[in-house]
């Protein structure tokens, strides 16, 4: 945990966020803060509103009520592309890839987007981008699949590919929606280990939704527990795991 979390401006702050779909209150007055360099895990049962919260924070959904700030600047109601340029990158629960492009082309496109997509007639496929893309792929053990069309990758690899696209944007905050679902439990730790280490090295912050409590315990500085569209509890992994209410609502579905 960061030592000056009380005084410092949070990197991400949400206040009283609310949205409903018909009768379902998917976010029901959510207050949330994430400090610089902090790794926060979100846990909670299926349908608790975890993905909805990420959708609200990254601009995919507009809240009916409430506000979001990044680095003290309001980002409420901004389009995803603007929020992305402000420094939040997202990996999706269901991988979102350019399925007709090879994996390395996907990644080079992400790098080009980061550098500004308007580059005249200079080809996307260039040495600097290719080298950087290969570095990211090697980091996550995907180098062998660099030339594969992402549409034909197996589910587990698609998930990782999706993470590399967010990672390549070099964001201030990386948002991951169940990064290790669909990945074997041995692979799970190797992936999280490389990912989290790389992020610490770059001084990034992370917000990740995760069902696997072992992963949460190992990599989260703080855990926020979601239930029925609001934050039900929060604390260190140890604190949360010893909370009987949390055990009852969450562990049943893990």
């Amino acid at each position, binding site marked *: 945990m960061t030592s000056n979390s009380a005084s410092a401006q949070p990197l991400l702050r949400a206040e009283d966020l609310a949205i409903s779909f018909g009768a379902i209150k998917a976010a029901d007055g959510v207050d949330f803060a994430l400090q610089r360099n902090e790794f926060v895990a979100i846990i909670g049962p299926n349908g608790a509103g975890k993905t909805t919260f990420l959708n609200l924070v990254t601009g995919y959904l507009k809240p009916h009520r409430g506000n979001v700030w990044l680095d003290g600047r309001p980002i409420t109601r901004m389009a995803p592309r603007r929020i992305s340029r402000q420094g939040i990158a997202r990996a999706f629960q269901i991988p979102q890839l350019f399925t*007709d492009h090879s994996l390395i082309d996907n990644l080079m496109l992400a790098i080009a987007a980061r550098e500004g997509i308007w580059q005249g007639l200079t080809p996307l496929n260039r040495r600097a981008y290719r080298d950087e893309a290969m570095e990211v792929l090697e980091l996550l053990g995907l180098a062998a699949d660099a030339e594969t069309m992402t549409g034909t990758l197996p589910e587990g690899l698609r998930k990782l590919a999706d993470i590399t696209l967010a990672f390549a944007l070099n964001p201030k905050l990386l948002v991951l929606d169940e990064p290790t679902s669909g990945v074997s439990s041995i692979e799970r730790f190797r992936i999280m280990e490389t990912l989290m280490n790389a992020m610490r090295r770059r001084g990034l912050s992370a917000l990740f939704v995760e069902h696997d409590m072992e992963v949460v315990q190992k990599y989260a500085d703080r855990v926020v527990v979601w239930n029925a569209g609001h934050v039900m509890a929060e604390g260190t992994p140890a604190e949360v795991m010893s909370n009987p209410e949390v055990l009852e609502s969450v562990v049943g579905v893990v």
Partner: protein
Amino acid sequence: MRKPIPLLVAALALLLLVPVAFPHLKFVITLAVAKGFAALGVALLLRGGLISLGHAMYFAIGAYATAFLGSKAGVSDLVLLLVASTAVAALAGLVFGAFLVRYRAIFFAMLNLAVSMVIFALTSKLYGITGGTDGLRVAVPTVLGWAPGKAAFDGFLFYLCILLMVVLGWLVHRYLQSPLGHALSAIHTNEVRLEYLGVSAWQTLLTSYTISAALAGLGGALAAMSIGHVLPEFAFWTESGHLVLTAVLGGIGGVAGAFIGSVFLEILHTVAVGVAAEAWNLIIGLALICVIFFLPRGIYGLIEARRGSTKETGL
């Protein structure tokens, strides 16, 4: 992803011999290349997953701009006419596109069709400006001070079309290889991810829409000079349909596809009409069915497939 360059060069060499070897095909090929520019415009949008059923309007706008500038504004220089007509079509594309590229799928297709029908109606009804259903005559332009006769100009225009096809085709190819070009095809597969990478799908599509309108406009201007006359039918929806057909038939995989498709269709047309008037639609229908079922990547895909197989063994 490299182009089958030797085959394309061979095809190009064959084209260059047309005026000598098959003089009666010269006009056909000139017109085919002119329409090829418009088909290339349609193919660009197809890459982004959008089908325009109204692109003949930009072809018509380019053609009418040439006719109007020549007959009413007294512009006779070929370069000036081509540049101005292309610019007018590009501007129209930018203005209409700003609104149209917000739509997808059937809505985009139908809205383009709707706008093109308005353009068609205007060209038919605004008699004072467009000559109504009679259209406008296009005088033979001058070329940097040289005032050729019709026959000499036709010969010149043929080679100019081929030159423009190569130069602009290469530029469009470069555009498709650039980050913005890749972003265009990325819209087709995952617009959400593209936006999450910080790229505006609207800007990406509007750029490509404007380029596609400019290409169609240039094609229209070249066609106007070649035919010597422009008519409202240039903007009619069947012409737009023909452009989509050409793009699909040729294959949208590469820039060359649009021109291959267009030359193929124009030559087929000439031959078919010689046999029987009804044969044309029959042949086109059958050709299209064959392409859709057996050559999903178009005629151009046939050429590329040879490389595809070597690439597979290489991996």
